[in-house]
């Protein structure tokens, strides 16, 4: 116990986050083995993992870098379709499914990072709501372009067309991987809950270490005061781009994981609404708070499922809960009230009153 207390505050907080994820994974595994998990919930596990990674990576852009991005799903989309194409073309070369999944995800992540650079270099010159709209625009462009893309695979390799699946001129036994607006079809579902868990841990490792490194402090300095940061010799472009590209790459990884969990995926899935959904996770979990993002992503993905008993009213309830939570956590009067109540409770239990005041 003493040793834990000796650790730096940031390290302790990181360890709690890792522990939380590991605990959650163990609980899920136990529930799966004992059969306590409903099938609909079981089907949600990989998407939950993907959304957690999405939320954590978006938090890097929104919370740590302090720039609003409304097109995060675009990077997810790139990772998803790159992953599907790689996984289908390597089906014969790499028989081992987990290895193929890893390779596919890696390619998806790298490709998303490349697009991240292409988007980031011009976009990060803009500020505030203008940056937000450019990211939104990029997300929509990516969706539109993938929607008209036809990709096929046969013994001679990959072929690409912008017209139709027939224009691919596939050989006998060839496979249409990406079928324009119909999306990717006939995906072999190789994503697993364990892969999702590993990806979350890797993401946390990258993001938490970045946050507590020299670069991370530079990024936060840029967020807090751009001009002051620049005047002490921090390269604004470099650090902004670094955070943005890492965030894009992680979204790409999440996208691959997500797509390879379903047999069909369409580009429309990764539209503006998905970007917004992930943003909701980040804001509800607390901007800049990684642990909050994880919890919010998990809870809010399951919430519509839990509200299923309300049938048609569930999305309505979801909306009302969202509004009420935002008002409750951001309204001055309510915040003061909560502070006073916690202070009173703390005094009653004879805790350190200072602690209560800070809560």
């Amino acid at each position, binding site marked *: 116990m003493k040793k834990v207390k000796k650790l730096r505050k940031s390290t302790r907080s990181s360890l709690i986050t890792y522990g939380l994820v590991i605990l959650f994974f163990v609980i899920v595994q136990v529930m799966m083995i004992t059969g306590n998990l409903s099938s609909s919930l079981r089907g949600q596990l990989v998407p939950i993992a993907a959304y957690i990674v999405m939320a954590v990576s978006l938090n890097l852009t*929104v919370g740590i870098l302090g720039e*609003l991005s409304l097109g995060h799903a675009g990077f997810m989309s790139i990772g998803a379709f790159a992953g599907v194409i790689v996984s289908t073309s390597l089906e014969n070369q790499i028989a081992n499914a987990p290895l193929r999944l890893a390779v596919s995800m890696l390619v998806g992540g790298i490709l998303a990072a490349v697009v991240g650079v292409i988007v980031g270099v*011009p*976009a990060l*010159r*803009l*500020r505030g*709501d*203008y940056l*937000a*709209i*450019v990211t*939104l*625009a*990029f997300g*929509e*462009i990516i969706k*539109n*372009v993938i*929607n*008209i893309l036809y990709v096929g695979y046969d013994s001679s390799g990959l072929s690409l067309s912008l017209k139709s699946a027939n224009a691919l001129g596939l050989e006998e036994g060839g496979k249409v991987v990406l079928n324009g*607006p119909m999306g990717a079809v006939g995906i072999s579902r190789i994503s697993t809950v364990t892969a999702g868990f590993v990806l979350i841990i890797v993401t946390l490792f990258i993001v938490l270490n970045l946050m507590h490194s020299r670069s991370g402090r530079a990024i936060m300095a840029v967020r807090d005061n751009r*001009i002051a940061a620049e005047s002490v010799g921090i390269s604004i472009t470099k650090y902004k781009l670094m955070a943005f590209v890492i965030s894009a790459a992680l979204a790409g990884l999440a996208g691959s994981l997500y797509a390879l969990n379903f047999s069909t995926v369409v580009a429309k899935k990764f539209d*503006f*609404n998905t970007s*917004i959904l992930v*943003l*909701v996770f980040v*804001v*509800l979990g607390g*901007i800049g708070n990684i642990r909050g993002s994880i919890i919010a992503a998990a809870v809010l993905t399951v919430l519509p499922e839990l509200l299923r008993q309300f049938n*048609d*009213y569930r*999305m*309505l309830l*979801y*909306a*009302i809960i*969202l*509004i009420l939570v*935002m*008002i409750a*956590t*951001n*309204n*001055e009067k309510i915040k003061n009230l909560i502070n006073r109540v916690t202070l009173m409770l703390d005094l009653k239990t004879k805790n350190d009153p200072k602690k209560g005041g800070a809560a």
Partner: protein
Amino acid sequence: MDFIAYLISGISLGSVYAIIALGYTMVYGIAKMLNFAHGDVIMIGGYVSFVATANLDLPPAVSIMIAVAVCTTLGIVIEKLAYKPLRAAPSLAVLITAIGVSYFLQNAALLIWSSNPKSYTSLFKFEPLKLLDGELTIASVTIVTVITGVIVMTTLSLIINKTKIGKAMRAVSEDKDAAQLMGIGVNKTITITFAIGSGLAAIAGVLLASAYPILTPTMGAMPGIKAFTAAVFGGIGSIPGAMLGGILLGVIEILGRAYISTQLSDAIVFSVLIIVLLVKPTGLLGKKISEKV
């Protein structure tokens, strides 16, 4: 001749975007928030006018007035219940609340009118205009839309530049605290801005539904995003910017669809937006933000 026809329908679509973008830009200018629920108010406007004409058999003019009245009330209620408690909150919190309101409106519409698309009969049933010996045909909806657009934009410019409430709106958007010290009711002004924006959204809803006669609970989302784009395109917060941005966006979209690619028309619109923002980072008519060190 084709080009002129496309240009006219582009201006028509652009007028709708401009009317919606005005709502976005006014609210942004005054409350510094992105009201993502604005697109869904359009949808409500469309449905209300549909119910008024198809179910209640009311004349078109009355149904439009009912739609405007309902949406204006809705705008005021939304502002009072959801946005007013968050006046001092960080902008992202308000953004998420607006998204919550958007979900709420969409799902409420889903419950009331079901997800089955409703086919809307255009309120404007007179003969299309034929010019140049029938070589150029302009649909009645197009004419009405363009005329409405011109009327709305002139009226709004007059309200903002010539009336007392317009002056108050400009003052609040310039400096909230100073305006309050001068005796302007900031909350009242914000509420009126929401009311005007939502009323405009209702008009846009009727025009949109007449031009694309399918009603669904999510019909407002895409025009909402496009109009938001238009507002940014022209420089968000700027009233003439929203009009210019809206019309340009509509023309680019229709011309892109006609001459380049149908499926890529949205991508073209957004690419143009990105290029414009790279050259003019605060939009076409946006104010330059000066930095204090």
